[in-house]
Structure formats: structure tokens, C-alpha cells
């Protein structure tokens, strides 16, 4: 009986990394200026979109500190999935099975990635999807999930456009106007045909930098203000600048 309870995942004590992470973000101060925070912009490559079955096969990430992309701190790994044979057919075309055969497994990459992320805030384009896959592997390996606050560049872009151009009729995230490519074109960002997760993360970092500095010019100074602005439909603060 006792044994059986112990085998249930929610009963296992979380890994030390997870506990530290929880402790750090328990009383996280959101009132400091945006420049004080470090962000990690990341993107994953998946074998598919099924959150139960599919796996992460690549992670790319770049760090933003002082609201600048730090090219010396980037992260890029391929990950050998547990079911390599099964996934071959469904692989995203830009990763070949060859690249995955010799790649390290998740239990080796995950601690590296968590240490890269550290106490940074997490940024992603439609970040919820990547986070749900990440949560699944941290649950599995560390019995818990990361508490780092996440920022979704799609939501930022929606808020920005709402204020700048008055788009009140939001069509949701599937709207093609909000793909990374479309937004990069719309805002005239440096754009490169992405080949891997790192380049997607880099492109997302450009978008994040663009949006957050546009917000900041509008008077948005602290992290809390950024979050509040994201929630409110009327993002008046942006247009004041």
C-alpha cells in the first residue's frame, strides 16, 4: 500500500532544483525596472503536437540581460527521443534522424538547460506549448515544474497592435498575422530563414526586444507593469509616449 502511494508521481518529493526554483519565485519581486531582469528566450522542436506522446528533440535558447541579446550566452542541443524509431516518420523536416541518433538523451540535456535558465524569466512565442512539454519532462525527471514567470511574445504583440493600430477584434493565436515570420515582417525586424530551434529563439528574441522597448518608450518600466498591461484590454500606457 505504502509502496503504491510512493510510486504515484505527485507523492514523490520534488528534486532539489525544483525546490530551489520554487523558493526563489515564491516572493519574486516584480517591481524592479525591466533592465534588472534576465530573460531566457527559448524554442523547442517537437516530434509532434500530442502533449502526451510527442517529445522534445531540440532546444534553442538565448539570454537577454539588460534588455540586450547576449550572443555569448546561447544554448542549443539536439535530444535523442525515447522512441526514435517511432518518430522518424513524423520528424520535423529540418532535423534528420542522423542528428538525433548520436544526440544525448533528455536526462542529460535537462539539467544543462535548467542551469542555463536559472532564475531568468522565460520568453517564448506561444510559450504555453513549449512550457507544457517542458513541464512534462521536469515532472518526469524531477517531480515538479518550474515556477519561472513566462512571457508570451504573441500576447505582447497582440497588446501592442491593439494599442498602436486599434485591433480590438482579436482572432486568437491561430491567426496567421501572429506567426513569428509575419510579425517579424510587419515590424521590419532583421529576419533570417530559421534552420533550427536556436535561430527561432533568436528571432523570437528580436521580437521580444522590439516589443519590450516599444512598451518601455511608452512609459512601461517594471515587470509588474508589463504583466498588468498584458492583462488589460486597454493598453493605454503604450500610446502615452
Amino acid at each position: 500500500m505504502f509502496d503504491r502511494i510512493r510510486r504515484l508521481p505527485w507523492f514523490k518529493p520534488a528534486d532539489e532544483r525544483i525546490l530551489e526554483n520554487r523558493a526563489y519565485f515564491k516572493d519574486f519581486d516584480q517591481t524592479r525596472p525591466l533592465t534588472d531582469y534576465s530573460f531566457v528566450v527559448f524554442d523547442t522542436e517537437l516530434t509532434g503536437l500530442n502533449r502526451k506522446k510527442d517529445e522534445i528533440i531540440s532546444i534553442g535558447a538565448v539570454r537577454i540581460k539588460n534588455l540586450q541579446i547576449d550572443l555569448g550566452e546561447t544554448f542549443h542541443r539536439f535530444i535523442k527521443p525515447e522512441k526514435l524509431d517511432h518518430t522518424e516518420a513524423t520528424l520535423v523536416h529540418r532535423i534528420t534522424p542522423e542528428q538525433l541518433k548520436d544526440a544525448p538523451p533528455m536526462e542529460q540535456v535537462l539539467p544543462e538547460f535548467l542551469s542555463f535558465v536559472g532564475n531568468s524569466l522565460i520568453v517564448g512565442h506561444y510559450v504555453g506549448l513549449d512550457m507544457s512539454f517542458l513541464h512534462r519532462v521536469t515532472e518526469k525527471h524531477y517531480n515538479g515544474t518550474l515556477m519561472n514567470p513566462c512571457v508570451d511574445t504573441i500576447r505582447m504583440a497582440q497588446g501592442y497592435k491593439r494599442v498602436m493600430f486599434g485591433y480590438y477584434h482579436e482572432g486568437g493565436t491561430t491567426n496567421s498575422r501572429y506567426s513569428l515570420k509575419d510579425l517579424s515582417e510587419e515590424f521590419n525586424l532583421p529576419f533570417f530563414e530559421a534552420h533550427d530551434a536556436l535561430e527561432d529563439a533568436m528571432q523570437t528574441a528580436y521580437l521580444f526586444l522590439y516589443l519590450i522597448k516599444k512598451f518601455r518608450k511608452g512609459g512601461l518600466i517594471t515587470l509588474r507593469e508589463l504583466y498588468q498591461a498584458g492583462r488589460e484590454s486597454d493598453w493605454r500606457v503604450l500610446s502615452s509616449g
Partner: protein
Amino acid sequence: MSLLDKEKNEPELFAYDSSTHAVAPEVAVSFFKQSMPFKELSQEVLQELALHCRIDFFPKGTRLFTYNETEITHLHLIQRGGVRAFITGEDGEVALKDYRGAGANIGALGIIRGTRANLNIETIEDTFCFLIPRDIFLDLVRENSAVSHFFLKSFSDNVVATAYHELRSNKLSRRSSDDLYLFNVTARDLSKALFSISASSSIQEAAAIMARRSIGSLLIYADEDPGSMVGIITDTDLRGKVIAEGLDYREPVTSIMSSPLKTVPASALCFDILLKMMSTGIHHLGVELGGSVIGVVTSHDILVQQGNSPYYLFKEIVAQSEFQEIHSLGRKISGIVRNIINEGAKAGNITQMIALLNDQILNRILTLLQDQMGPPPLKYSWLQLGSEGRREQTFKTDQDNAIVYADPADEGEARRAEEYFKLLANRAVNHLVECGYPLCSSETMANNPQWCKPLSSWKAIFRKWISIADSEALLTAGIFFDFRHGFGSEQLAVDLRDFVTSEIKNHSPLPYYLARQCVANRAPLSFFNNFIVEKDGEHKDQLDIKLRGLSPFVDFARVMALRFGIRETNTLERLRLLHINEKISKDLYESTVDAYELQMQLRVIHQLSQIEDGREPDNYIHPEELTDLEKQMLKDAFSVIERLQNVLDNLFPEA
């Protein structure tokens, strides 16, 4: 506050150690590979450099550096966007120094010299920059000669000279090695040994020396001073003035000499000597060095060495008495342009030369027509308008011309004049077409009765434009107010110019409106690969060098000339006179001339290469046609436009 100021005390504490397996992001390395001077570096160095870089974003209107305040912690390399560099004077006046776009860098000078920012820098577009830390950049400069050379070069005054050299050597393939003649050979090189005889000698004594030495000319010096040349005699003088006239050989040589002796400085280029010979008709010139004449240069010597020269063409045109021959010679003029560009002519020289040739064509056509039709009933002046009026044509563009004739005494004379000049103009315009000068689409030509009028009518037309300064006047100013005499009785053109000058002096609003038009005409420009380009439309990402580049200079010179009663129409000449009359500073004058000539040069070369490719020449320059240095210089040239507009803005303040 600058973002950079904030960054200074940023701690570099991050738990994750990426140094062992970090991959330099391709985005940075590939950008460096396209940017001067980083593209000179090896792949390994670029990878390493990229790892030390950061990327920052500065929304439009962000102040990056503040003059004498900002400590420069990073070299900024613009990835996307553009900035302007400027200085604010004590009186708050803003002097624009530069525009910089993608591929350009900011802060190099300050880092290398170890000073604070020497300019204010502000983004004029949303701008992404790569930030290279100061110490890393200094290491690069120290360790890599290509990098240090680039920055030293870009700080030096030699940029202009280098770029002209590059223009010449890169853009056009040479046809033969002796092409460089016109601009490499000086009067001193061409000068023949000096032979002279005293003024008291006889004609026979002079002829004897010429025969013994086999020379075609002989200088005459003042008796008391063998170093002082008072005149020259030539074979032609002996033939025409002595033998043909039966003059006594014992007469003093001074009776047949040409005096005073016309000279050119020893340093004068072959090209300038030719221009002088063409415009004066004098074929023997003394060569002067340090105040004394050291030799003689003759047109014959130049022609012998220079088979297919402008001068050769000029002489052929002068000698023609058949329309058909003139037509074919007229069509050869464009070909001359290539030769003299190859030889290193600046555009200003080229247009002078072309104007002389065009005038000679006109001269022959009208002279022959008058021979056909009989003398005109009244004196007239054929006016050249627009770019031909400014002597700024290179490749042939539409005809712009008009006729002004003396006021007729009575009705009958008026009718005869109208008929004669109408016929003359019709035929002349057609012959000009045959010579390769196309018709003007808006019919601004002498064969249009509207533009073939007696002096008093012309005065009425100009008076209306000058006093009302309506949109028609502003529109036509660029064509009509740049008129000059082309052929006939120059006095009529002079009278008309006098009238225009004095009418404008009389409190005309015209210069004011023209000036405001110039100032308002700030171009909607953008940056593409560190290059100023059209933002929208059919020619997006190209530069209309005529409209954006040259017109502001031409318009500025015209407004100022009209305002200050300068009668000259040529832009460079107008600028020179404005400078001499202290209407513009020496510094502004020199920058303006450099900027204007550079753009004329780029345009001529652009069009020439189109013509050689069998395309219609246009004014749209593509960034990829230019070297980094040329782009740099074009931006310098554009910053001058802003200065010119400031001058106009101050002189003609907005009401």
C-alpha cells in the same frame, strides 16, 4: 539618458558557463561577413568576436550618444535601421553631420581616441545594433591591419581622393593604356623647348631662327629683359601677315606678333589647356612657371598625341558646312564622354566640354540656316534653358530653348520677324533632333510661338513670374530662370538678364517661395544596406540621384543667385560667386562643391554604364553598384543638403 549609461555597472554574474560549447550565432557572423571592415577577418576571429557581442534595439527617436557626455563602452554596428549624427551649437542650432544606416558603425572614433562621444547620435528609424565591447574592438584594431587601416582611412581627409580614384578604376574598363592622357599630362610635359628673340629683331631674323630650329612659333622678349615675354609669332603669322601682305622682312618682329602672350600654368592639365584653346581660339600658349615663361604648348602637339579627342571633334564641327555632316558629328558627342571619364575628368569638366561642343553645333546650324534664309530682320539671341542653360548636360536630354529678338519698330517689322524666326526655329529644332537632341515633351522650345518673342514680351512674362510667384513661376523657374545666350546677339540675353536681376531685387517674393520650396522638400528617405534610398514606390531601395541628390544643390544655387543678383547660371560657378561675395562660408562652399561633384560623377558613370549595356539611361542608383566608400561619401554629400537647407531656412524664415 542613454541606454549605455545604464549599462556601465551591470554585473556579469550568471551561473551558467557557456564558454565551453557555445556556438557563435550565425546571425552575427554572417552579418560581419558583409560589413566593412569586419569582412576582412577570418572565420575564427569572427566566431570569437560574435561571442562577445550583444544585440540591442533602439526605437526610433532614441538618443544613443550625447556629445561630450557619453562614455562609449561599445562599438555599435547597425544591423537594421538608421541614425543621424549631429552637433548642437551653443545657440541650440543643430548641425547635421551624417546619416548612417545598416552596416555602418558608431563610436569608433571615440573608442580609438579614448574620448567621450564626439557627436550626438539619435535613431531616425527603429534600429537594431550589434554591440562590440570597447576592449574587444580595441584589440581588433591593434591586431588586425585591415581593421586599423579601415578606421584610419575613414577618419582621414583622403577619403575623397581615394573614392574618386576608385570610381575611375572600378567602374569602367579601360579601352587602352594611353587613355589617361588628358588628365595626367600637364602643360610642363607638353612644353617645347623655349626659343625666343628680342623685340628689336627683324621679321627675317625671327624667320631664320624658326627655320634653323624647325619650330612653328617663336617668343618675343622685351629688349631690356630677356626673361619677360611680350608676344609670340607663328608660321601662320609669317604666311598671313608677311608674305600674303607683301610686308618688308626688315620690319620689326613686333609688328606681326600676337601680344600679350597668353599663358597657362605649368601645372595645368592637358584638359584645361584644350578648354582654353577651344574657348579662345588661340592655339599657341606660353607655359608659365614661377612667373616666367618656360616654353610653349600648341594645339598641334596635343592633337598629334591625342587622335580622338574632344578638341578634334570640335575642330571638325567648326569646319563643317553641310547639315548632314553636322548631324553625324553631333551624334558623336556622347561618345566623347566616355573617353574623358576614362581619363579621369570630373563631371564638372565634362559638362563644360559638352557645353562647348553643343554650342558649336548650334552655332553651325544657325549660321548655315541664316545663309539659306538670308539675314534675320532683327537681332536675336537663341536662349539655352534648363540644364543646357546651366551648362550641365552630359548625355543628351530634351531640348529646352527659346528665342528673344529685338523689339520691332512697327507692325510690318513685327510680322516679318515673327515669320522669319518661326521658320528659323522650326528648322533649327529639327536639325537639333537630327543631331541627337530629342524634342521637349512640354514643348519648351523656340519653335513654340509662346517661347519665340520680342524682348518686351519676354520682360512681361518674367515680370509676371517674378511679381506673382505663383505655382507656374515656381514650376518653370528651373528651366527659364537658368537661361543663357547660345547664339546670335548676346546683348539681348544680357538685357533680359539685367531686367530679371533688377526686377527680383525690387522686393520680389520669388526667391522666398523658391527657398521655402527647397526647405520643404525634405526627402522621404530610408536606409538600405547603409545607403539612402527611396522608401516607397516603384524604385524602393534605390536612390533617385537627380531628384534627391543633385536638384537640392542646383535649386539652392539658383535661389541664392537670384536673391543676390548673381547672373551666372552654372551651379558650380554660382556657388563660387556666392562664396567670393561672402554669402556662404568657405567651409560650406568646399563641402558643397565636393558633394555636388561626387553626385554628378556617380550619375554620369551610372548612365554611361547603362548606355554601354544598351539601356536607356536613368537616374536610379542601386546600392549594389557602389562600394562602401562611395556609399560613405554619398552620405556625406547628403548631410551637406541639410546644411544648405539650414542656410535657406535662416535666410528665408518661415512666415
